[in-house]
C-alpha cells in the first residue's frame, strides 16, 4: 500500500492547520459564511439538510485495516457510530459539528487520509476498479496510475478553479467495473498490437442532468504519456468550458458542443505542446509508487477443505456463488462483503462492523480492504481455505448477506434523508425494494440485476446506468419516481430509457414488481438476464406491464 512521503505528510498537516484556523475565524466572526463556504468545501465539509456532512476521500477505494479502524473511531467520537460509503469511493460522516471538524481532519491525517478536493470545481477523488491487483482479467493494477494522478492533481495550481468538478476513473481490466464511460475522463487499460499495456482514453462521459457516454479520444495511449495527456484534456477543458452556465459547465457539454473530432484535435495539439515539458520524473515517480502496490506474499496451501465445505453447506454455497469473484491466483478468491443487508441503508457500516472488517482483513485478507462504487466492502485477497471461517464471522456481524449483483444490491444516494440538493428520498425506496422482494423470495429467481436510485437529477446513485434506474423528483410538492430501463455501466455502457410517467412513493415498489414479473414471464430461459431480455424485446412489454394496470384502474 502507498505510504505518505514526507511531502504528502507535511502538505496534509499544513492543510489541517490552515483549515483549523479558518474554522476558528468563522466561529469568532472574522469570516462570514460567504467567505467561509468555499474554504470548507475545499476541505469536504458540506452543510446538508439536518447537519454538516464531511466527505473523506478513499483514494482508488483502497484502505488499510488501520485506516478503517480510524474511520470507526471518528464515527464513534464525533459522529453517530456509523459511516456512509458512497458511489465515488468516499466515506461520508453525516453528523459532525463544525467545532469538531479540525480534530476529525487531524485524526484522518494521523492515518494518511484527508477530505481535500472531495468538493469544489477541481479534480475529485480518482476512482478505480475495486478488484484492482486481484482480478483474474486484469492487465495491470490501475492504482499506481491513480496514485500518480492523485499526486499530480492535488492542489494543482492550474486546476483548482475549473469550470466545474472533474472526475477521473481508471480500470486495469478490459472489463469495466469502474464505470469509466460515465466519467469526465475514463481510462481503460488495453493492450496494443505489440502487446504493450496502455489506455483507451474516454472523455466527456457523465450522468446528471445531461447523461452522456464518454467519447474515445485515444484508442491507445502509452503509459508514459498518461500525465501529459490528462493534463492536455484538462487544459483544453479549462479554456473552453462554459463558466457562464453551471448546467453547461461539465466537460461532457464541452465535448458535445465542440464535437468529438475537433476536441480530439485540440487535445492532441495541446498534448504536443505539453509532452516535451515532462522530462521523465513522472515515470520515475510512477515506478516508486508501483513498488508500494506490490502484490502480497500469496500463501500456497491446499483448498480441498474449502471445496468439501462448499459442497456440504448450502448457506455458505449461496454466499460463495454471489459474493466471490475469480482471483488471478486460483487458490484465492475476491470477497465482496455486502453492505446491503435486506432493509439496511445501502453503503452504511457501523463502527463495530468497520472494526470487524479491519480485523478480518488482517486475519484472512493480507491487510487489504477496498470500497466499491457499488457501496460494498471488498477483501481482495482471501485464500480459499479461509473462506468458511471468514463467512462465519461475517454472518455473526450481520455482514454475511448473499446478494452481491442481485436485486437488493442496490446503489442509492443519500437522497432527501440527508442531502440538501435532493428532490426526493432514495434510501427508503431501496430498503423497501430489498425487503419486499426478500419476502417474496424472488431475488435469486430473478438473478443478476442492478437497480440504482438517485434522489435528484444530479444522479449520484448512477440511475442512468442501472438495469433498472429510479430517479426521485419533486412533482408539484409530492415525491415522484421516474423509471429508466436498460442502462449499463460496464464497458458496453448505455444510458437507460425512460419508461414514461413516474410513480408516487407508495407506488414505486409495486411498479418495479410489475416490471420484474413481466421479465420472469418473457425470458427465454432462467439464464437470460434482465438486461439481456430487455435488449432482446425492448421497452414495449415492460411499458405494457407498467402502465396497463394503471389504465385499468382509471377505467374502473
Amino acid at each position, binding site marked *: 500500500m502507498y505510504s505518505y512521503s514526507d511531502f504528502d505528510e507535511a502538505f496534509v498537516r499544513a492543510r489541517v492547520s490552515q483549515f483549523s484556523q479558518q474554522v476558528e475565524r*468563522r*466561529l469568532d*466572526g472574522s469570516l*462570514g*459564511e460567504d467567505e467561509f463556504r468555499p474554504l470548507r468545501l475545499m476541505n469536504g465539509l458540506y*452543510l*446538508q*439538510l*439536518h*447537519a*454538516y456532512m464531511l466527505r473523506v476521500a478513499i483514494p482508488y477505494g483502497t484502505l488499510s485495516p488501520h485506516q478503517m479502524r480510524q474511520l470507526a473511531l471518528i464515527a464513534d467520537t464525533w459522529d*453517530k457510530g456509523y459511516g456512509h460509503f458512497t458511489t465515488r469511493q468516499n466515506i461520508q460522516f*453525516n*453528523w*459532525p*459539528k*463544525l*467545532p469538531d471538524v479540525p480534530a476529525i481532519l487531524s485524526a484522518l491525517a494521523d492515518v494518511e487520509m484527508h477530505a481535500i478536493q472531495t468538493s469544489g470545481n477541481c479534480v475529485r477523488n480518482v476512482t478505480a476498479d475495486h478488484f484492482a491487483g486481484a482480478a483474474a482479467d486484469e492487465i495491470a493494477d490501475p492504482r499506481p496510475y491513480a496514485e500518480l494522478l492523485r499526486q499530480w492533481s492535488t492542489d494543482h495550481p492550474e486546476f483548482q478553479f475549473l469550470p466545474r468538478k472533474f472526475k477521473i476513473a481508471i480500470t486495469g481490466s478490459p472489463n469495466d467495473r469502474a464505470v469509466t464511460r460515465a466519467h469526465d475522463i475514463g481510462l481503460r487499460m488495453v493492450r496494443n498490437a505489440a502487446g504493450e499495456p496502455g489506455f483507451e482514453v474516454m472523455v466527456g462521459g457523465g450522468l446528471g442532468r445531461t447523461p452522456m457516454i464518454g467519447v474515445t479520444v485515444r484508442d491507445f495511449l502509452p503509459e508514459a504519456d498518461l500525465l501529459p495527456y490528462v493534463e492536455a484534456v484538462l487544459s483544453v477543458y479549462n479554456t473552453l468550458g462554459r463558466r457562464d452556465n453551471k448546467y453547461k459547465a461539465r466537460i461532457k457539454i464541452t465535448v458535445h458542443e465542440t464535437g468529438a473530432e475537433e476536441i480530439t484535435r485540440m487535445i492532441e495539439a495541446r498534448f504536443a505542446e505539453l509532452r516535451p515539458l515532462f522530462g521523465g520524473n513522472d515515470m520515475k515517480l510512477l515506478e516508486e509508487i508501483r513498488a508500494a502496490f506490490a502484490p502480497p506474499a500469496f500463501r500456497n496451501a491446499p483448498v480441498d477443505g474449502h471445496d468439501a465445505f462448499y459442497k456440504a453447506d448450502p448457506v455458505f454455497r449461496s454466499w460463495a456463488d454471489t459474493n466471490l469473484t475469480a482471483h488471478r491466483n486460483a487458490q484465492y478468491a475476491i470477497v465482496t462483503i455486502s453492505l446491503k443487508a435486506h432493509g439496511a*441503508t445501502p453503503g452504511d457500516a457501523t463502527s463495530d462492523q468497520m472494526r470487524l472488517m479491519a480485523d478480518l482483513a488482517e486475519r484472512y485478507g493480507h491487510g487489504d480492504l477496498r470500497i466499491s462504487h457499488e457501496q460494498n466492502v471488498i477483501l481482495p485477497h482471501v485464500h480459499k481455505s479461509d473462506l468458511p471461517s471468514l463467512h462465519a464471522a461475517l454472518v455473526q456481524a450481520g455482514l454475511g448477506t448473499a446478494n452481491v449483483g442481485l436485486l437488493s444490491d442496490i446503489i442509492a444516494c443519500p437522497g*432527501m*434523508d*440527508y442531502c440538501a440538493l435532493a428532490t426526493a*428520498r432514495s*434510501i*427508503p425506496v431501496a*430498503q423497501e425494494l430489498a425487503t419486499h422482494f426478500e419476502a417474496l423470495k424472488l431475488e435469486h429467481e430473478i438473478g443478476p440485476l442492478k437497480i440504482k436510485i438517485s434522489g435528484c437529477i444530479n444522479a449520484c446513485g448512477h440511475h442512468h446506468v442501472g438495469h433498472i434506474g429510479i430517479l426521485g423528483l*419533486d412533482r408539484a*410538492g*409530492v*415525491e415522484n419516481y421516474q423509471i429508466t430501463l436498460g442502462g449499463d455501466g460496464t464497458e458496453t455502457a448505455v444510458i437507460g430509457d425512460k419508461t414514461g410517467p413516474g410513480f408516487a412513493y407508495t407506488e414505486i415498489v409495486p411498479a418495479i414488481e410489475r416490471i420484474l414479473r413481466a421479465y420472469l414471464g418473457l425470458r427465454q430461459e432462467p439464464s437470460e438476464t434482465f438486461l439481456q431480455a430487455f435488449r432482446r424485446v425492448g421497452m414495449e412489454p415492460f411499458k405494457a406491464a407498467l402502465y396497463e394496470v394503471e389504465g385499468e384502474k382509471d377505467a374502473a
Partner: protein
Amino acid sequence: MSRRFTAKVVTANLLREGDVVYLTADDRWSPHHHEAELIEDEAHGQMRLLHATAQKLLVVGAYLADAKPGANGPEPTHFREAFRTRGPSNYAHGKQADFT
C-alpha cells in the same frame, strides 16, 4: 398582479451544530417548527429574513419556507420541510430522537 402571499417561517441551520432551527416571534431560534413565527405579510417576511441573516455567529443559510397554521402552531407544507422538522427516515437520528 402579484400572487397572494403564502405564509412563511424563517428557518436556518445553527452555525456550530448544523441543527435545523426556526425563528420565533420573540427572536429566539427554536428547534421546533410549531414555535416559529408564522409570517403572513411579505414585507414583514423580508424584515424577519434580514434580521435572521444578520445573525452570522448563530445561524447559516436562513431562508423563508412555506408554512400553514396548525393546531399547535405553524406546520410545514412541503415534504422537504416536514423532513427537516424530524430528521432522516432510515434512523431515529436528529430531532425525532432528540425530542422524544
